[in-house]
């Protein structure tokens, strides 16, 4: 392994699962927080999570992203001098990565693959923060745009002509006030720091999902945040698959966080087979998968969420609308809890660390509809699944999530048992975006639909007490209408090739038919 002369070096003192305590060897550079480290001869990847000075010793706590079985005290740990990062370069869209951004499938982000590059910059061009300087057709539906980072203001000194290049080849040189800088297609992006933006824009455009209960009753905006809480078997993953398949985003980042391996295979197989109705290409061509399945090391589960977000922000800066599916944020919170426990931190509620709420809020805050640093517009929509223990929505992860999302699609076990899917409970769900996104006649119809459903709920309560014999005719009519709304509008068959996606115009027609019929 290559060791830099100025590396920070330490030796393992203690090991407790994925958490190792390292004694810093004096006379080398200090470790810094969030520094990526390499452990032992195999170079296991880890990250610095805390530092402590106990004269004469300095100790460093590291979370290791790989299996620590076989590690011994005394093993050397080296700082890389870089924070945990993901490499933004062509070869991401259409592929699958683990929680720390290592590719899991063959053939994609390989170092020697040559990409057809079309140069946008010419010698003599003025450059600025975020200037697009070249593009690559990454997949049939995604064009990768190489972006200059902040501080690349200057003049293009030289650049290659259009042609085929690898991601690490230097293609562009810029004369900046601080000297000459050269660029390749690849860019290291620290995962825990949000990429800069110029400003946030109001959320006024819907993310169209083709799912009637969402678009019609509880819509989400591009750049918005939604949570899908539900007990096991209520269809969280299914709902996220449906959104990932049919929503009108340009790119989907699907983060499988502590979930089933087979579900990842299902996405890979299904999405490769299905056609994106907007581009006519395979759905996989606009999808990035981050897979940290439940049998993979727990620390990488914690990092996977950020790896996914860093990729999403990279594409947002190219001017795309990105939708991030995080399945499941509860597993991520549990990873936080496990790591926190191993570090002997003082717990707050149900063993979760006290920083659970702030980590969740920082995560959801990375969504938004923004003006990028180069003036283009892009958005990140985040949909997080929540897996409450015992389907009890009062547990800490659901409660803390609720504080930071404006769209809440509560899944209900009774609906799922009756095989009413999507099992989104219209009595418990809400959308803070509805007033902005649904207006005019549609808003009026939405209000009518909800009225009928609420009224049905009230009548059903009465029936439970009195039976249905004595109901007045008007209430019978309401029940009849509500039943049709549930059966023909709310319920949607994901496996039926036609019913799986309903365009907005058809949705409006169905609603009009239900209300007037």
């Amino acid at each position, binding site marked *: 392994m290559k060791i830099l002369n100025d590396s920070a070096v330490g030796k393992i003192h203690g*090991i407790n699962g994925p958490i190792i305590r390292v004694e810093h060897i004096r006379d080398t550079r200090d470790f810094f927080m969030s520094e990526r480290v390499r452990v032992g001869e195999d170079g296991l990847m880890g990250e610095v999570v805390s530092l402590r000075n106990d004269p004469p010793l300095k100790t460093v706590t590291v979370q290791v992203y790989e299996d*620590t079985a076989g*590690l011994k005290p005394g093993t050397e740990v080296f700082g890389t001098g870089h924070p945990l990062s993901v490499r933004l370069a062509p070869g991401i869209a259409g592929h699958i990565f683990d929680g720390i951004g290592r590719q899991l499938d063959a053939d994609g982000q390989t170092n020697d693959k040559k990409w057809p590059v079309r140069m946008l910059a010419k010698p003599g061009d003025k450059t600025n923060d975020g200037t697009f300087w070249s593009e690559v057709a990454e997949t049939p539906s995604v064009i990768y745009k190489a972006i200059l980072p902040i501080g690349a203001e200057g003049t293009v000194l030289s650049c290659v002509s259009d042609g085929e290049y690898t991601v690490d080849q230097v293609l562009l040189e810029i004369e900046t006030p601080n000297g000459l800088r050269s660029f390749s297609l690849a860019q290291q992006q620290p995962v825990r720091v949000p990429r800069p933006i110029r400003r946030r824009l109001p959320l006024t455009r819907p993310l169209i999902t083709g799912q009637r209960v969402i678009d019609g009753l509880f819509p989400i905006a591009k750049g918005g945040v939604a949570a899908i809480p539900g007990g*096991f078997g209520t269809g969280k993953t299914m709902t996220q698959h449906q959104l990932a398949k049919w929503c009108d985003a340009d790119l989907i980042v699907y983060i499988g966080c502590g979930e089933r391996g*087979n579900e990842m*295979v299902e996405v890979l197989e299904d999405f490769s087979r299905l056609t994106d109705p907007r581009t006519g290409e395979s759905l996989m061509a606009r999808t990035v998968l981050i897979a940290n399945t439940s*049998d993979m090391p727990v620390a990488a589960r914690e990092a996977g969420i950020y790896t996914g977000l860093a990729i999403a922000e990279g594409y947002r800066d190219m001017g795309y609308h990105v939708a991030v599916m995080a399945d499941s944020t509860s597993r991520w919170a549990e990873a936080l809890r*496990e790591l926190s426990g191993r570090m002997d931190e003082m717990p707050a509620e149900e063993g979760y660390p006290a920083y659970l709420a702030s980590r969740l809020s920082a995560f959801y805050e990375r969504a938004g509809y923004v003006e990028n640093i180069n003036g283009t517009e892009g958005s990140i929509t985040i949909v997080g699944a929540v897996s409450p223990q015992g389907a009890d929505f009062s547990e800490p992860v659901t409660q803390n999530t609720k504080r930071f999302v404006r769209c809440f699609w509560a899944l209900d*076990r009774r609906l799922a048992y009756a095989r009413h899917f999507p099992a989104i409970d219209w009595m418990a769900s809400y959308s803070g975006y509805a007033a902005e996104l649904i207006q005019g006649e549609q808003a009026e119809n939405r209000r009518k639909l909800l009225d009928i459903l609420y009224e049905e709920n009230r009548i059903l309560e009465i029936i439970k007490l009195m039976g249905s*014999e004595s109901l007045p005719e008007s209430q019978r009519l309401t029940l009849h209408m509500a039943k049709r709304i549930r059966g023909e509008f709310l319920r949607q068959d994901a496996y039926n090739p036609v019913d799986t996606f309903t365009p907005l115009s058809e949705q409006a027609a169905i609603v009009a038919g239900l209300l007037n019929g």
Partner: protein
Amino acid sequence: MNVEYLGAREIRGALLILEGVEDVAYDEIATITASDADTPPLTGRVIRIDGDVAVVLVFEGTRALSLTNTVTRFTGRPMTMPLSQEILGRTFNGMGRPMDGMGNISATVRLGINGTPVNPTHRIYPRGYVETGFSAIDGLLTLIRGQKLPIFTGDGLPHDRLAADIAANISTPSTAIVFAAMGVKHDIAEYFRRSLTESGALERSVLFLNLAGDPPTERIITPRCALTAAEYLAFDCGMDVLVILTDMTAYAEALREISSARGEIPSRKGYPGYLYSDLASLYERAGIIKGKCGSLTQIPILTMPGDDITHPVADLTGYITEGQIVLDRALYQRGIYPPINVLPSLSRLMKDGIGEGKTYKDHPDLAKRLFASYAKVSDARAMVSIVGEEDLSEADRKTLAFGRYFENDFIRQRQGESRTLEETLGLGWDLLSSVL
């Protein structure tokens, strides 16, 4: 490495804490003996290291060890299991050592018992239908080869019989059955052995027994040995392997016991915060792997304390496994076997394993209709308890009748009755057309 460490700093529950150790690796296995007692050597695993202090979890328990008589030798390797085709037909204890008096296994390979995480792109999505002979399962909760489908049950319900019947019904010459008992009573283990003998599957079976009276810490190892044997049979020998793990609740309790001894911060009901990850490290070992011909199907059994489906073990299991078969006390009291309540039950892999070209074209449609019709039954029954059967509407009456026939004719099966899928589907359509 032949260094022996004499004595200990602390012994607490199953934990042995040593001081002054050198060159010990995390997760490595140690052999422990009491120098003055004539007991067989114990096995332990390093679960924490702090400088020269090592915490060793002793699987068989620390009885007879003292602060001075303890002799510990570190083996320098994680726990492995010797394996060859000879394991078929054999019985092992909870630590994976032969206990049937037929001698040691002459191994062709030694495999680590912890398994390794599977790169999802190396998996094949399971789609192959398995006929269990039970209408409730085949028709509505179809079992797929390579699936992990647990039985959620309660004390006194016939989960053992159901698991044994499924094992007998799906058994073919290329099927192997791996049975792992964790903290179950000896007569249950005996029941499985007898049942496997009667169906002729015993010679293709491997049994791992940690019984109710055996050391609880050993239960952490038992399912891992069983799954390692199963992976060997599936992916090295190309067999279709069914693994029955029982009782997962006892397993989780053992985990809780150790966690408590380690002084870890508990989450729900005292279970450790990593219960989910730990269970997943077992359940995720089911599946089909690219380039290998066998498959590994799991039917874990877990008893829900107080029949509570929100209990942490059931709850976390449901989040990991690909569905669940839920047994129902009320059905069982009415003499219905198998007492499967299909509404809270689910087979997540069913959708891609049934229908045209896989089972029958009308299978998905029938399942959907039966679910929809049966979902109304409990509402109608609730209505009866309010207004009485006299004042029911005609539709509600039909629904009630459907519920009775569905439970008595479709769900219920006679002793030894095994139905083909064709019979199951025929029965389902008859029921829908005659009653509704």
